[in-house]
């Protein structure tokens, strides 16, 4: 028992010392156990061992072990200690440090720092416009939806947002809600009342004729609405936006008012509601 315990305590000594003298130390313990029987002898023995352990183990760790008894790695460090480093050592060390610094700066600059969405760079462009081809209005916003989808941005939040957006498909009820909201907003915000009436009549005519029934893409639907509005009244300033990123995830521009999770209507600056109503109140209501 005593021998096993002391063999365990010998682990407190450095490995080279244990390897060189561990067995001798155990032999000495066996000799003392044999020659010092009885409780008093064992007690004195263990007091001696523990006191010796407390003093000699730290000293052995501090001392510089002889080269022959050290492992190869330790001898390498001893060579460094005994001989001054050569100039080439400083050169390679400096080169390695510079390379590491350059890599660190590169990682800081590029790794994990996502490029901003075009829609994030400018709040006004957060909502994708679906202008008719060739229209001069908001031409720079065209195609933002596709770019947002294909962006190299890989943050988890945006992946989730894109996933939600990819799942969004327009159904008949959604088309009806959006169309009703668009008509209400056109009536409310179109300055030219005759033009507003013409636009609303045109939109309702298309709805009745089932022209929108096959459209399941939000962008295509907004595009069709804008095309129809512009055809009915080329001077209209009301514009329908569609975004595949729900408005719960982004903040639209101040002049753009959401009428649905994915659709918004642009109210040009200076346009005031003749009835003084808040555009937010014109949003569609889901069942």
């Amino acid at each position, binding site marked *: 028992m005593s021998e096993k315990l002391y063999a365990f305590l010998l682990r407190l000594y450095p490995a080279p*010392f244990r390897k060189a003298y561990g067995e001798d130390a155990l*032999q000495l*313990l066996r000799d*003392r156990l044999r020659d010092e029987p009885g409780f008093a002898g064992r007690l004195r023995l263990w007091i001696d061992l523990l006191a010796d352990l407390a*003093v000699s183990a730290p000293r052995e760790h501090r001392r510089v072990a*002889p080269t022959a008894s050290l492992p190869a790695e330790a001898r390498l460090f001893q060579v460094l200690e005994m001989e001054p480093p050569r100039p080439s050592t400083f050169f390679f060390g400096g080169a390695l440090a510079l390379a590491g610094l350059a890599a660190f700066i590169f990682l800081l600059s590029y790794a994990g720092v996502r490029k901003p969405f075009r829609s994030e760079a400018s709040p006004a462009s957060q909502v994708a416009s679906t202008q008719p081809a060739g229209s001069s209005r908001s031409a720079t916003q065209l195609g933002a939806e596709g770019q947002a989808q294909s962006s190299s941005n890989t943050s988890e939040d945006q992946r989730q947002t894109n996933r939600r957006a990819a799942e969004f498909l327009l159904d008949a009820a959604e088309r009806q809600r959006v169309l009703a909201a668009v008509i209400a907003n056109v009536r409310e915000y179109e300055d030219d009342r005759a033009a507003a009436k013409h636009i609303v009549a045109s939109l309702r005519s298309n709805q009745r004729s089932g022209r929108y029934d096959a459209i399941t893409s939000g962008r295509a639907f907004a595009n069709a609405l804008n095309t129809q509005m512009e055809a009915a009244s080329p001077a209209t300033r009301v514009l329908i936006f569609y975004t595949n990123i729900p408005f719960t995830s982004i903040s639209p521009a101040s002049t753009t008012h959401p009428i649905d999770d994915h659709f918004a209507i642009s109210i040009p600056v200076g346009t005031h509601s003749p009835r003084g109503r808040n555009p937010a109140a014109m949003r569609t209501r889901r069942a």
Partner: protein
Amino acid sequence: MPRRKLDPLPSAAFQILLALSEEKMHGYGIMRQVESQTEGRVRLGPGTLYSSIQTLLEEKLIEEVDAGEQEKGTERRRYYRITSAGRKVARAEAERLADLLRVARARRVFRGEYV
């Protein structure tokens, strides 16, 4: 010039050199001899004993020798004996202590039986 590990000579190392001054011994024998020559005041533990032995070997003040006929057939033990360099170091240390003793006597530090 690196400093020698045994300058000054530690008490345990000096005791081991004195213990080996007459005959070769193994570790346990050295421990018993030191205990005897100090009248039981010093009992070297395994750590201190073998740490000192290792240092004395590195400084070539002692050397490891064959066990000889007396240990054949029993446990294998390592025997050590003092070298001529070890003897010189032990003598120098003894003289240093003797000088100290003379100074202490001259200063009348001792009383009674030690005088």
